[in-house]
């Protein structure tokens, strides 16, 4: 494992926040089954109240807001990692049934189940005579 793999990567593409925090790219695992796409994202410091999942057309955005990570009354004397928000965007190729998306958060890990939609049927447009 190289250094790069272990460190959190800052998301520089994201618009700056008003709060003075860095935004990191959460590490994800994605796997596909016949009926669904599963996405597992590591976002330590978030819980179900501070995580957001958005699907607009075929662009999926996951974001999480993290408290400053300070320990009350203590001073930081040695630091190897930084604390900040998370954001990452994916373009999905498959049509997703957005009504059936399931999301859970456990110990800072977001787990998304994105069920594939049944084949979108071509719509026939009826033309009325003017």
């Amino acid at each position, binding site marked *: *494992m*190289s*250094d790069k*793999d*272990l*460190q959190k990567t800052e998301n520089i593409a994201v618009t700056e926040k008003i709060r003075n925090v860095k935004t990191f790219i959460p*590490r*994800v*695992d*994605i*796997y*596909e*089954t*016949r009926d669904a796409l*599963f996405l*597992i994202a*590591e*976002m*330590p*410091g*978030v*819980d179900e109240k501070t995580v957001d999942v958005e699907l607009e057309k075929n662009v999926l955005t996951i974001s999480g807001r993290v408290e400053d*990570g300070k*320990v009350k*009354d*203590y*001073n*930081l*004397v*040695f*630091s*190897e*990692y930084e604390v900040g928000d998370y954001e990452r965007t994916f373009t999905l190729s498959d049509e997703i049934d957005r009504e059936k998306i399931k999301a859970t958060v*456990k*110990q*800072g*890990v977001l787990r998304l189940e994105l069920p594939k939609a049944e084949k979108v049927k071509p719509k026939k447009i009826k033309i009325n005579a003017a």
Partner: protein
Amino acid sequence: MFGPGIWRMKRFADSVPGIIDLQREINRLFSNVGQSTALDYPAINVWEKDNSLVVTTEIPGMDAENINISVTGTTLTISGTSQPDPIKEGETYLRQERELGNFQRNVQLPFQVDSKVIEAKYEKGILKITLPRQKEDLPKKIKINL
């Protein structure tokens, strides 16, 4: 490289966050030169107050029972194991960026800790260990006789 001895930095506790930021920037500038700056996993932050220390680390998605914390002498050991989702045949991982498996990290503490009162909390994927200094290890004040 350019890593200051961590306990020496205590003397300038107020300026530490600034120094650490600067150090990180410098390390990034030189990160491709010479030896690697590889850090151990998981990365830790160390906090101090009077006679106790707090070690925090981000290890998301674990079960509390799979995390082992122990103290031997002045060495704190954090270890654990995590498993990826089992997938069925014919299914494939499209992306695998998470670091799963076994890990172990040893941390040298600056003093003896009272192992009976060590507290550990695991919340939102962040492990927080509070380590109070052992009473017998506190510096003794010596009276000067006239």
